[in-house]
Every structure is written in C-alpha cells, then in structure tokens.
C-alpha cells in the first residue's frame, strides 16, 4: 500500500501544492488527472524519489520511504518520453534492472523473453531502440519497468503523442497486462477518458489537497 500524507512540494521557488494526501491499495490502479502544470508529474517524481518533498511523508507497505534514494525504493516509472537507453538493444534495455541486481544470465534471459512476449515484442529483442516506432518504444518502456517487479508502477502520461488507433490499442493492452500481473499503479494523465478506461479509481489532483 502506498500512502502519501500531507505532502507539500516547492518547485523552482514556488509552491506547487500543499497538504496532498493519497492512499493506493495493493493491486489497485489509480488514475490521477489534472490540468497541465498542476504538478502531476512532479508528484510522481517525488514518489519515485527523483525529487524531494518539502513537508509530509511517503510510506510504502508501512515503511517510511520519504528520504530513501530512488534506486532503493523499488518503485518503477514509465516516462512520458520513454527514456530508453540509446546504447542498448531492446533486450538489454528490458534486462537493465536484472543486470543491476546481478541476476544470473540464464534466468535474466528467460525473464526478458517472458516479459517481451507479454508486450508482443519478442521478435525485436536484438533491435536497437533508436529504430523503434512510437508504439514499440512505449511497449519496451513498460516491459523494462515491469520486469523489475516494482511494488508500485508510476505511469507518467504514457500514451501521450500516439495516434488515436495506436492509443486505443495500447490502452487496452496496457490495462489487461497490469490487471493480469496485479501491479499497483498510479497513472497520471490529462485525458479523462483514458483514466476511466484503465483505472479502478479516477482522482483529480485538486481534490486531494486539503
């Protein structure tokens, strides 16, 4: 369970929001909406440990992770612009977290194939990521985050910039995948239809501020 308690964030010397509280239960998919510039992405970055909060606390499964560095939190994140590592192939990108954890190669290879087949990209395992289409790159980013088996997965507008047809197909696939794996998800989007389609609960950021 992820508990965000009375969090305030100051960004570039101005307060983005104060006293924000949110709880996400195990296996729950929560979508967070709000206008551009309201601080959705910054909130995700704070939960991931990429930015610091000014006040309040963040607990994950009962442990206070407020001051824990990002690499120790086991919170995954899919970035709006994917941020695939350009020097690695599709397979190596997906295997990145396993390599960091020094997972034996054979086990890592099997896991990579398994996750890539879940997103339908097994045939691209040796492809360089700079040659992928927008949809393929998005699937690789999701696979790379899922293979680390994060306790919470943060999705930062993951379907922005895709054409309507691809957007609809990926939204359906992503929803199925996350439910099948029982991943706890906080999904940030400005698209209310997308939020309703994928989430158990849809919240507006402004309603969370007390």
């Amino acid at each position, binding site marked *: 369970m992820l508990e965000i308690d009375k969090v305030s964030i100051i960004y570039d010397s101005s307060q983005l929001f104060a006293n924000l509280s949110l709880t996400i239960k195990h296996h729950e998919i929560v979508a967070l909406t709000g206008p551009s510039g309201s601080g959705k992405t910054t909130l995700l970055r704070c939960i*991931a*440990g990429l930015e610091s909060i000014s006040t309040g606390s963040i607990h994950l499964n009962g442990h206070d992770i407020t001051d824990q560095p*990002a690499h120790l939190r*086991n919170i995954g*994140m899919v970035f709006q612009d994917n941020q695939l590592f350009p*020097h690695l192939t599709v397979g190596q990108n997906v295997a*990145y977290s396993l390599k960091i954890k020094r997972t034996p190669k054979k086990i890592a290879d099997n896991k990579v194939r398994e996750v890539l087949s879940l997103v339908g990209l097994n045939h691209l395992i040796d492809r360089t990521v*700079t040659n992928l289409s927008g949809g393929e790159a998005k699937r690789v980013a999701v696979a790379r985050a899922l293979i*680390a088996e994060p306790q919470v997965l943060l999705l930062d507008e993951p379907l922005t910039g895709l054409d309507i047809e691809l957007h609809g197909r990926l939204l359906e696939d992503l929803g199925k995948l996350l439910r099948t794996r029982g991943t706890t998800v906080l999904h940030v989007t400005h698209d209310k239809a997308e939020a309703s389609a994928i989430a158990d609960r849809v919240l507006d950021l402004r309603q969370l501020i007390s």
Partner: protein
Amino acid sequence: MTTIYNRSQAIYWLAIAPIVAIVIFVIAPVFNIFVSSLQFESLNLLRTEAIRNVVWFTTWQSLVSTAFTLVIALPLAFVTANFKFKAQRLTTSLISLPFILPSIVVGVAFLQILPNNFHRTAFALILAHTYFNFGFTSRLITARWLQIHPHLDDAARTLGASPFKLFITLTMPLLSKAITNAALIVFTLCFTSYGVVRVLGGPSRSTLETEIYFRAMQLGDVSGAMLLSALQIVIIVSLFFVTTRASRNKFKQSTKPTISRQKSLQTRKQKVIAATIISIATLFAIVPVLAIAFKSINTNSRFTTTAWRTVFTSPEITQSITKTLIYAVIAMSLATLLGLLSACSVAYSNNNFHFISGLTTLPIVISAVSLGLGIIITFDTQPFDWRGAQFMLPLAHALVALPLAMRVILPVLQAIPDSLRQASSVLGASPRQTWLNIDFKIIRRAAISAAAISATVSIGEFGASSFLARRGAETLPIMISRLLSRPGDSLQSQAFALATLLAIFSLIVIFVIDSFANTKSARDSHA
C-alpha cells in the same frame, strides 16, 4: 542535409577555394615529403637507436599526458555538466585559457614555476601537456554530457541503479565516443607538440616534432627530417583511421535535451566536491600565467618594469609585434573565409562535398612543423620559390587555423533547420537573400569566434614559423624563443613580458568567444 541550396550550382564554386588551397599548400608539400623521403637512402635512420628512442619517448609521453589529462578533465566535466554554480561562466573561461595559450607560453610558464631540477624532464613535459589540454578536453566531454537527457538517469535510478552503477552502465557508455575522440585529439596534440618540447624538453628530451626541426635546421639533414615527418604522418593518420573505424558503429547520439541537467548545488557533499574540483582546476589554469606575469616584472630578484619598457621601445621587438599582428590579421581573414566556404560547401551539398571535412582535418594530422618543412622543400624553385615570400607565413598560419575555424562554423550551420530557409523563400527571398538574412545572421557569431580563434592560432604559431620566419620578420613566439636562448636575466624577463602579452591576448579572445556562446545559449533558452 538537404537544403534549399542543393539545386544551386554556386555550391560547387564555394568548394573550389578551400580545395585549391589545401591541395597546393598542404597535400602537395606532404606528397613531396613522402616522395623525397623514399628517394633518399636514409631509411637506415629509422633503425638507429637514437631515433627509436625518440619515437618511443614521443609515444609514451603522449600516452601518459593523455591519461593525466583525462584524469583531471573527467571530474571537472562531471561538475560543469551536472551543476550550476556561482561564477560558472568566469570559471569555464579561465579553465579554457590554457588550450588557447600559445604553446611556447605554456612552455615558458612551466619553465618558471617548476624547480630547476625538473627542467628537461619527462615530468615537466607531461605536466605542461596536461595543463595545455585539460580544459579543452573537459569542455568536449561536458558538451556531450549535457546532451544526455537527465530523465535517462532518472529511468536508471528507478530501475535500481545506484549513482556508481548509473555512471558505469549509462553515463560512461554514452560518453565513450566523446572521451575517445577527446583522447585521440589530445594524444595527437601531445605527439605533435612542438613549442612546449622546444622550451621544456631541450635536446635531451626530444620528440619526433623537435627532432624534425633539429635535423632540418641545425644538422642540415633535410632528408632525415623528411623521413621522420613522413613517419609521424603515417602514425597519426593510422591512429585516426583505426579510432574512427572503431567508433563508427556506435549508437546514434541523441540531440540536445529540452531540459537542462545542470542543477543547483544542494547537499553539503555536493558543494564540497564541486568547490574542491573547481578550485583545483582554476588554480591549475591560472597559476602558470600569473607566474610568467610575475617573472616579467621581477628581474634579478627585484621588481622593475624595465622588461616591459624594453618590449615597447626596442625596435627589434616592436617590429616583431607589428609583424605578428599584420600576419594575424591576414591569417585570420584567410582562415575565416576558407573555413566559412568549407563549412557552407559541406553543409549545403547533401554529402557531395563531405570529403572537404576530411581535407580540412589534414593540417591537424600533419602537424605545423611538417607543414612548414613541406612548404620550404616544395616551393624552392623558380617560378615558385616562395620560401621567403611575405605571404607564406600568414598563409601557413591560416592553414593551421583552418580546421578549427571550419569546425566552429559548421555545427552552427548544420543546426539551422531548412524550414527557416523555406519560409524565407516562400516570402519571396532569392537564395542569395535567404543566405544573407537567415544563414549569415545565425552564423555570424560563430564566424567571429572562428576569426578570434584563427587570430590566436596565428599569433601563437611556432611550428611552421620556425621554418618560414625570416630574419627581420620574426613573429613573437620566435622572438620569445630567441630571447630565452640568450643568457641574462633581463633578456629572460623580456621573454616573459612577451609571453604575458600573448597570454593577455588569449584571455581576451576566450572571454569574447565565451560571451558570444553564452549570449547565444541565453537566446536559445528564451526561444
């Protein structure tokens, strides 16, 4: 790159001047060196122990200097690429100063700050080469580091990478090409270093470059000098070939990210690390320059302005200053014009003239000393006996500066989106008007920077000048070398005063260039 100028025949005319200049004054002399050195029965020279020692010393001191340079440049690049701090612009300019200093000034500075027992040692050469190259190397690596999107680091961190693992698995692979290229350039510059070795190494610490000069000008063994010159060219060209091939298949470099990775220093640890690295680098950059300035006003252990007064009253020295400035203006104009033409022909020709980029690299690969030697052995018979011609020295300076001038202008030209030119065209502008109102207005700052760099190269050029400068028309570096070779503390102080003058000029140039670059980036960030 496809541009609206692709269809214009004028592109072919643009390329003619740089091609002709390089073919006549670089390729022909080098060809002559190879042909002549193969004709002579001097190949046995390469088997002598003395020459083998020179080759070995040149190689290992270049390798160690390159390694030392990277050891200092990498932490510095880490700070400048990742953090914002007070006086960053000033610090960056000061750290860049050594690279733009004339090599003879660097040699003179280390002669002054090192104890006598370190003169004529490999350590002195390595330290001076490290000093000369560390700021430039740091800037090259910083430029690439700034292109790595900060969210890539974030992605790695959310996947469990600690700062150390992030550096090893992400940052280093993404920087590897920039580091390899920087190392190759530094190695080449150390391998072909001349001014520093002439001043600090002396006869006992000879490199290939000084040995070429020594054989041609002091022993009269021109054939031996040409053979060594040919050997040096073969080594450097092979190195460029191998390194270029090795890094060819690297992944595509990403473009400049939309958000900066430079953050304010927040934690105490960050502040201490950054302050330490920046302080050491800045001190390393300015202490040698301050040392020569100090020595110029300190003769026979007392403070006096005699040396400075002599510099501005001695007819011999004032004539040298005048000649140097005249040559610099001619060389600057020529190098900037040729650099601009080369850059335009490469940028607009849709790869047809890409080879010009390689051609303009030749003066770096060949080295100034080999260029000077090649020119005096090639243009030595009527009607082309131009060895003593007034135009030869500024022309040689322009050719030495051309690779830098071209490389300052080309990236700016290539970064102009063709849509701007198309917009100008549909608004009724002819290609000429489009070039003047779009391309030229965007690249003019780069052209001014290229001119400033070319002037600095000319003013400090020592290698080719050693062969081409005639009595009564000596440039400042030659004058400094002559003053240093004469006994007497007052003459030495005059040499230090002239070296200080050159350093002040270099400092002005680096501030001009950096202020242009900063104005441009400020504009970019507001766009």
